[in-house]
């Protein structure tokens, strides 16, 4: 499915979804990189050795849940923009998603945006909590988006027409 459409299959996603137990402990990176390609900046960028050793540069990166604290450094370093952080403990009802953003316009803090899934289809609404920017991020902004908890493994983008 992924090779035909560019949209990861439910099995692909299942394979990278953290356990409920791990999700209940706080933020964690989810690496949606399902193809062996010669690439390793996420691995070299992680200060906590939370991405398993890549013996071959073509190895797929695998998260080590106990080492990851969801800091999001890898999110801004992934050339494929394929890494997201999900924090299921953000509030009673909401989860926080950190996602890379390299487009104009950039949503403002506190704006309400329409959320999209991996196929670009509408999911619901989200609230922008923070937009990380600055030198370190090298023009890949990190949007912190609060979404209803049940949407946290669905929402992977936002609709550009819904904010200024």
């Amino acid at each position, binding site marked *: 499915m992924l090779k035909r459409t560019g949209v990861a299959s439910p099995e692909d996603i299942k394979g990278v979804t953290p356990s409920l137990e791990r999700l209940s402990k706080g933020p964690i990176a989810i690496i949606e990189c*399902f*193809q*062996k390609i010669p*690439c390793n900046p996420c691995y070299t960028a992680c200060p906590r050795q939370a991405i398993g050793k890549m013996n071959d540069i073509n190895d797929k990166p695998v998260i080590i849940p106990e080492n990851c604290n969801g800091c999001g450094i890898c999110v801004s370093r*992934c*050339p*494929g923009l*394929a890494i997201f952080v999900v924090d299921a403990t953000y509030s009673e009802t909401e989860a926080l998603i950190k996602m890379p953003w390299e487009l104009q316009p950039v949503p403002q803090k506190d704006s309400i945006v329409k959320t999209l899934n991996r196929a670009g289809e509408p999911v619901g609404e989200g609230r922008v909590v923070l937009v990380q920017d600055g030198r370190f991020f090298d023009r890949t902004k990190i949007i912190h988006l609060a979404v209803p908890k049940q949407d946290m493994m669905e929402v992977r983008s936002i609709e550009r027409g819904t904010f200024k």
Partner: protein
Amino acid sequence: MKNVDIAIVGGGPAGLCAAITAADLGAKVILVEQDDALGGQLVKQTHMFFGSEKQHAGTRGIDIGTMLVEQVESNPNIEIMLNATAMGYYPDGVLGINQEENFIKIKPLKMILATGASERMIAFPNNDLPGVFGAGAVQTLMNVYGIKPGKRVLMVGAGNIGLIVSYQLLQAGVEVAAIVEGSPNIGGYLVHASKIRRLGVPVLTSHTILEALGDREVTGAVIAKLDEKWNIIKGTEQTVVVDTICLAVGLTPLTELIDQGGGKLAYIRELSGYVPIHNQELESTVSGIYVAGDLAGVEEASSAMVEGKLAGAVAAKALGYKPKAAEQIIEEAHQELFDLRSGPVGAGIRAGISKLQEVRQRC
């Protein structure tokens, strides 16, 4: 007549890295570039590069370009010739250059050709209408000059270039109606495909363009679905309203100079067409002429940079410059190329290179 150790033709990723490496080892280098600026296609790449730190992975192509150009410009062993087209290489070892209508002769001891590749065309009615662009032209307009090629684009081809340029169009604020790809599978990296899919751009595999519509300019395109034998499925034709059609249907090596200079060519599909026959140290069938980058077989920019480094070190070593240090660079470059090509996405390149070695044994 200019005498020099090494003449390098082409100031893209391969040529820049060849120049830096050879000059650092002590060789005097002339770098010949037909454009008015160095950097080749690097200056159009807004995305972070793949690969490892050794190929500057995680840094955007434009920034890698700037960094390499600064290194070249600050190296006293490198003379840069801009707006300079290499016209021919002659049996007496002279390279003729046309620089702003002046004919300049260079006599290099070694030569590295890094002339790159040109874009392929595909046949369909009205493919010559204004508004049908090669992907490189769209990148030039948008990323070099800050100009949108149109309002709404149909992208043809879902290899890495088609996917990357689609994303660059979105970054420029241009709508992408769809990407059509004849093959049943996306050819480029799937992470590139996923990042445009989640912004709502359809990727239509097993689809092709039938014709461009329009009188004086593109006003639309007809696309249709293909069966597993690449035949058009009747009744699946649909019209897409677009003012721009962008062709990203592959590249083919620019072999004119090496061919004219006497280098033998071989047709190797996996390397994207006719390529100069060369050995593992990138030497062509003409002694002392090396090839690097897309000319040696179309591949990613990261491997082009490594090939440039390899060719630069081999040429400098052949001239006796710091042979030990050169040998170490050569070994490292071979290892880097092996790593970049060792995975499943490198299978085509590996097959192409082994075919090339078979052809070379025979000639």
